[in-house]
């Protein structure tokens, strides 16, 4: 077929684009990368791999492979065990920690890791110029908060010091039962000073990048892959199980499942990556591993406005919710209904029972508050966010369910207001809502990570609820060095929170799900905080 005159170019143009694309492909595909020993689907693309910037769990998991702190997490129990520090002593008043570093610590580039590196890393996270979101993890140290706020200018006044090359001496504000947990948290991990000072914000792109953890960063292509290779100079390198690990950022649950089913990924370890519609079927499979997770789904009341300024109203709404029905009908992955905030299984703590399902009592309380049968009750609104990733409508389904329960049991009319995620957090912070969907994932395995946020000044309180007695109890608990006494005080505080004052309605405790075939992958265990140190994981080589 021939085309006349000037029209001839149109097919060549289409053909040009086609072949140019094919060539580009061929060029792109010729990048020679050896296959990985292990491929993990980790959730959305990490925002950062800088320990002082990361906040999301998916990001933190990768960072933990690159940079280590004084302690690290045991792969089975996720409790802190010696990391860069081999031993430590704690003073009798539990305010002074003296850490002794291992003598064989090296950066992946060969220089020695010293106590000064630890001090530098912690002060860097606290430095206002770093703008570290999680600087609060260090506020338990003396003068740390003041230094971050700029009230203390001299870094030597902050309670972390290196008396010699192998000793780190930490002085805390008050006893902190979970301080060793924090030492394993990426914000407190040890980062390379020279590289950071040389390259600034872009230091993670420097090659070679000195790492203090079990792995080095070989490749980081946004939305494509992160490749970690074994750090041969890591103090425990002999026990690092994989040479090359690929971390794939996959945001869509269906894509993650497809890749896993076709054998392109060995492990998928984010619950968001289980297609919600299939969750009840999938959790029954042998390669799906559900476990109790340190997270709670709950509803916040804005207690600063009518009608929720009245605790009787809040309790009435809480009592009218059939939580059993929510986990059975909507979440479907085996979640436990929650009557209290702190998840079951938290270390050294058992929660007091909160409010159960009692519509009769709920109606009575509502009548006492002046709204018999819901009469005269103002029209209320429930705020929730559009679920990320798409497809997952859990927030919406729960909202609809609550709407129906409160209408049927209490005669209350409620509108639903769905907003985009960033807007949602903004509204919640400004108390621009009446009722709001909420959740919280513990930062460390301790009751304080849940109960502490409902103290008066806390930025995560977001209910407007203030209670002096509650604040005093939390303070007292955290000053207490006796584990049993501390638990008792926390229980009193939680009773106030979930039985008497009820600024929140706990709905259920999260279940985490990892999926991998135990015949093919070893060294990964399910634990409450869903942490799985990368160095312990290996793929079993199949014999040909």
């Amino acid at each position, binding site marked *: 077929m021939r085309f006349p005159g000037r029209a001839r170019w*149109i097919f060549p143009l289409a053909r040009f684009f*086609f072949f140019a694309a094919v060539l580009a492909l061929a060029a792109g595909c010729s990048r020679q990368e050896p296959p990985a020993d292990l491929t993990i689907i980790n959730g959305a693309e990490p*925002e*950062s791999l800088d320990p002082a910037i990361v906040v999301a769990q998916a990001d933190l998991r990768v960072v933990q492979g690159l940079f280590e702190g004084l302690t690290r997490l045991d792969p089975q129990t996720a409790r802190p065990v010696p990391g860069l520090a081999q031993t430590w002593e704690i003073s009798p008043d539990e305010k002074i920690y003296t850490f002794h570093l291992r003598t064989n610590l090296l950066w992946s580039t060969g220089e020695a890791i010293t106590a000064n590196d630890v001090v530098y890393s912690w002060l860097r996270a606290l430095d206002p110029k770093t703008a570290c*979101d999680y600087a609060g993890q260090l506020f338990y140290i003396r003068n740390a908060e003041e230094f971050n706020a700029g009230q203390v200018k001299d870094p030597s006044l902050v309670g972390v010091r290196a008396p010699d090359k192998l000793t780190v001496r930490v002085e805390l504000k008050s006893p902190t039962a979970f301080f060793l947990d924090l030492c394993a948290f990426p914000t407190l991990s040890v980062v390379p000073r020279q590289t950071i000072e040389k390259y600034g914000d872009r230091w993670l792109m420097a090659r070679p990048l000195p790492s203090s953890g079990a792995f080095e960063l070989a490749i980081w292509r946004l939305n494509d892959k992160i490749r970690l290779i074994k750090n041969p100079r890591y103090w425990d390198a002999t026990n690092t199980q994989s040479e090359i690990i690929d971390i794939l950022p996959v945001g*869509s649950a269906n894509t993650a499942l497809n890749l896993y089913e076709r054998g392109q990924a060995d492990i998928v370890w984010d619950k968001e990556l289980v297609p919600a519609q299939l969750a009840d079927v999938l959790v029954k499979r042998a390669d799906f591993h559900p476990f109790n997770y340190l997270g709670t789904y709950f509803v916040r009341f804005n207690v600063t406005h009518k009608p929720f300024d009245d605790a009787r109203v809040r309790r009435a709404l809480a009592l009218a919710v059939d939580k059993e029905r929510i986990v059975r009908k909507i979440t479907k992955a085996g979640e436990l209904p929650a009557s209290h905030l702190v998840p079951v299984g938290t270390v050294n703590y058992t929660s007091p029972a909160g409010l159960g399902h009692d519509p009769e009592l709920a109606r009575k309380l509502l009548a006492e508050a002046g709204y018999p049968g819901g009469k005269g009750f103002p029209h209320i609104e429930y705020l929730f966010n559009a679920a990320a990733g798409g497809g997952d409508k859990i927030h919406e389904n729960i909202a609809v369910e609550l709407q129906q329960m409160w209408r049927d049991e209490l005669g209350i009319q409620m509108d639903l207001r769905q907003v985009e995620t960033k*807007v*949602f957090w903004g509204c919640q912070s400004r108390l621009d809502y009446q009722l709001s969907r909420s959740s919280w994932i513990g930062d460390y395995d301790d009751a304080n990570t849940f109960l502490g946020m409902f103290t008066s000044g806390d930025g995560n309180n977001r209910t407007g609820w203030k209670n002096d007695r509650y604040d005093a109890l939390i303070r007292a608990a955290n000053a207490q060095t006796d584990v049993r006494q501390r638990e008792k005080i926390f229980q009193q505080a939680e009773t106030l929170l979930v039985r008497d004052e009820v600024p929140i309605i706990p709905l259920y405790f999260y279940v985490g799900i990892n999926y991998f075939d135990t015949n093919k992958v070893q060294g990964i265990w399910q634990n409450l905080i869903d942490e799985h140190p990368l160095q312990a994981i290996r793929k079993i080589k199949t014999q040909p």
Partner: protein
Amino acid sequence: MYFLKRLAFAVPLLIVISALAFILVHLAPGGPFDRERKPASPEIERHLQSLYHLDEPLWKQYLRYFGLVWEKDPQGTWQHAPASWNASTKYRNHNVSDIIAQGLPVSMTLGSLAFGFAMVVGIPLGFFSAARRGQWPDYLGSFLALVTVCIPGFVIAPVLILVFAIKLKWLPVALWESPWHMILPTIALGSYFMGKVARLMREGMLGAAQSEFVTAARAKGLGETSLLFKHAFRIALLPVVSYAGPMLADLLTGSFVIENIFQIPGIGVYFINSSLNSDYMMTVDLALLYALLLIGLNLVVDFAYTMLDPRVKYE
């Protein structure tokens, strides 16, 4: 001369677009650092805001975006403040230019493939539908074109994956590694445009077949086949060509849906996510990139018109 004028006009246009985009993203509720966890003190939030100059008045932020701000340093001398357009508040370790440099080639590859697919399949499909007007090839072709236009990518893509990747296991389910990985996304992305091109081509052919110069040529005794190929085809192509410019701009900048479903490291996802993340600079950068492509390709289309249709001349 005409094209030079058009190019010169593009500059103020881009400035207006950048200003509009800048104002709109800042007007949208929610900021880049609004998230589930509040930092432990309000100071931390303030540090974050000031690191990215979000605490400054909007006009100053806009000037800073282009690097038009000079500030006094502690010694009292005026220093040029670096332009902020390259900073991402979401991916703080990356520059926006790096993100685009990583993602754009991938999106362009996929877009070019889809463009080629849409043209190479769509033009003949439309042509032959029109040539066999009212007969079964026409019905079949028109039906196919209609179906591909009606079914969106987020339906076609999973169906393709289900059939060719999961059931038949011929092709990979996702990722972007070998040419095999590109087949399904190309079809999923290109099918809508293919249908559109086929429909435009068919309409164009039918219109051209009725025009006077075709009747004249027929009267001169030209055979039907060469009539369609030689004379009608060129004119029928015009609507396709004018559609091709914006279509190419659309395809080359990636697709949120297709990149998400196939886990392709292109820049399509950033067009949506940067604004959802309130990543101000990146949103404006991408709006400008898209505008630039659109302006450029429209210019190419106008140029192509002069090549195709002797009746069109620009002064």
